[in-house]
């Protein structure tokens, strides 16, 4: 479970995030939806302990991200905005490096990689160097790297950016399977369809603050629209720039 309580972050007197609160329960997919620059990435970075909140706090399985960052990181699998791989290493070595840093045993690393290769349909890629990989192939490696330790909580920052239709579909499948396995999944996107397709809960973020929160139907009711896109534009537009 991931919980954000009044998160705020200022960079040199500019508020990137003003006030973000939400609860993402286990076994649910929670989508952070908002236009570019709304503060989604910064919010996820605060949850993943890499950015220290200026105000408020966040909790992962009840652990405070500012007090116990290492324990929080151990419970998270993060696909961050930056997802660079080591070009001279093979896909398997890239994944195994992170697994070893998470103190997994060689046997557990091997079975973890086998499980994800199956799930992401990337067996043929495993022993090739990442150097010549396509965007979609790189993404698969990055996702496998983030999930190899079978984390209870998963953060995905704009995971479908730059992916073709086929890869996007298989990624959705992966996310659904994570939900079935009872994981807490939080993912950010600026694409309406994606969020409405996939998410149980939608958190609409605009200008660094949460403007609406709930399942798709609730948001429709709240905005008084019949179309989710209209509802999003209406709700996001209500919040004026500070």
């Amino acid at each position, binding site marked *: 479970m991931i919980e954000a309580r009044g998160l705020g972050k200022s*960079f040199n007197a500019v508020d990137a995030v003003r006030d973000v609160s939400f609860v993402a329960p286990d076994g649910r997919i929670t989508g952070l939806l908002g236009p570019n620059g709304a503060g989604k990435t910064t919010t996820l*970075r605060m949850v*993943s*302990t*890499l*950015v*220290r909140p200026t105000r408020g706090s966040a909790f992962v399985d009840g652990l405070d991200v500012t007090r116990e960052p*290492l*324990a929080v*990181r*151990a419970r*998270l699998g*993060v696909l*961050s*905005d*930056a*997802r*660079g*791989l*080591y*070009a*001279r*290493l093979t896909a398997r*070595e890239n994944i195994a*490096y*992170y697994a*070893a*840093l*998470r*103190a997994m045993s060689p046997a557990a690393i091997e079975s973890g990689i086998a499980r994800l290769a199956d799930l992401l349909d990337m067996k043929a890629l495993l022993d090739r160097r990442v150097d010549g990989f396509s965007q979609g192939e790189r993404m698969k490696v*990055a996702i496998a*790297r*983030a999930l190899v330790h079978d984390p209870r909580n998963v953060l995905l920052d704009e995971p479908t950016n730059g992916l073709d239709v086929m890869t996007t579909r298989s990624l959705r499948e992966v996310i659904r399977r994570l939900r079935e396995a009872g994981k807490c999944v939080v993912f950010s996107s600026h694409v309406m369809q994606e969020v409405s397709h996939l998410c149980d809960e939608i958190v609409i973020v605009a200008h660094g603050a949460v403007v609406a929160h709930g399942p798709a139907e609730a948001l429709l009711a709240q905005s008084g629209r019949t179309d989710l896109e209209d509802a999003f534009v209406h709700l996001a537009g209500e919040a004026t720039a500070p």
Partner: protein
Amino acid sequence: MRPAFLTVLRKELRDALRDRRTALMVLVASVLSGPLTLVLLAQFVSGLEEKAASTKVRMVGSANAPSLVNFLQRNDVEIEQAPADYEKRVKEGRLDAVIVIPDDFDARFVGGEEPRVEIVYDDSRTESGPAIRQAERLLRAFNRETGMLRLVARGVSPDLADPVKVEHVNTATPRQKGAFLLFVIPMFALLSPLLGGMAVAIDSTAGERERGSLEPLLANPVPTRHIVAGKWLAAWTLATAVAAFTLAGFAVASTFYAQRKLSAMMAFGLPEWIEFLVVVIPFAAMTSALQMLICTYGRSYREAQTYVSYLATVVSFVPIVVIFAGLKDAAWQLAIPVLGQQVVLSRMVRGDALGMADWLLPSTIALCIAAFCIAAVVRLLGQERIVFGRT
């Protein structure tokens, strides 16, 4: 369970060794060029000695000076007729020095009218030096002999012309004479760790930032100090390895001269190799840590490469300063990084005895600087502007 820093160390070493192009560059630039330099220098020096040893002069118009020719022949000097275009040849460096005798030499010599002799040379060519000095020396000797004979002929003691007797006593041991030549070994010993650690230092800091792998790396549940320590150990290992290879190259090269006159000068064998490494290994700890620190500020590989080359320039400047400033050994020099190592390594090459301070002071200071730099890198990687400030 393997500590996290060892996991990082292993990954960085594997990654670095897969970079064939860089590996080859390091191999050629460092491991081969060192001995090559030494061989060339040694060839140059022995060439000088050979030129000086063979007493041979080139002359134009020797028929005009039978007395001088007679003197030279009595002194076992071989006389070679210079070709007519000698001036051109001297300019081109194909002739070192030519003694030119004018037509009226003998007439003036017999008449006591100060005949003139020219030595034609180009002193911008250092390799001509011995030949020029030899020609000069022979002419001066001829002058002296003639002068003596004339004094005796007039009933004057020749000692009057020589109030002070000068004798040469040279205290330099053969090994010290070679120190000039062996100066290059300390220089390579100090530069090779920079070359060896460079690729990993750049790739594991600015490289991680550039390719966007730093943020996910730091999201692992590992304290940043473990990650930095692993990267630093990888850079240090490669820096040390390259230095060890380079110096081994020198040791091997110097055995080629074991049978020659130069052998006494060029004592750089296994004991010296070990002594050098004792100084170079802590030094490599410092240079790799410094390289990592300055590269962490680089947002791209290229930017970091520029910063690293500044550091290399500073380090390579020190031996040059020592040569041209003519610094005399003093205790304070041991406390200055790079200079301290330079001083100690030079003493080893000269075969001087080393004291406790020589062994400990430069290395302790180097390790302290390394620790400071590593702590600074750990701090920097905790800063959002470094982790997220990408190009």
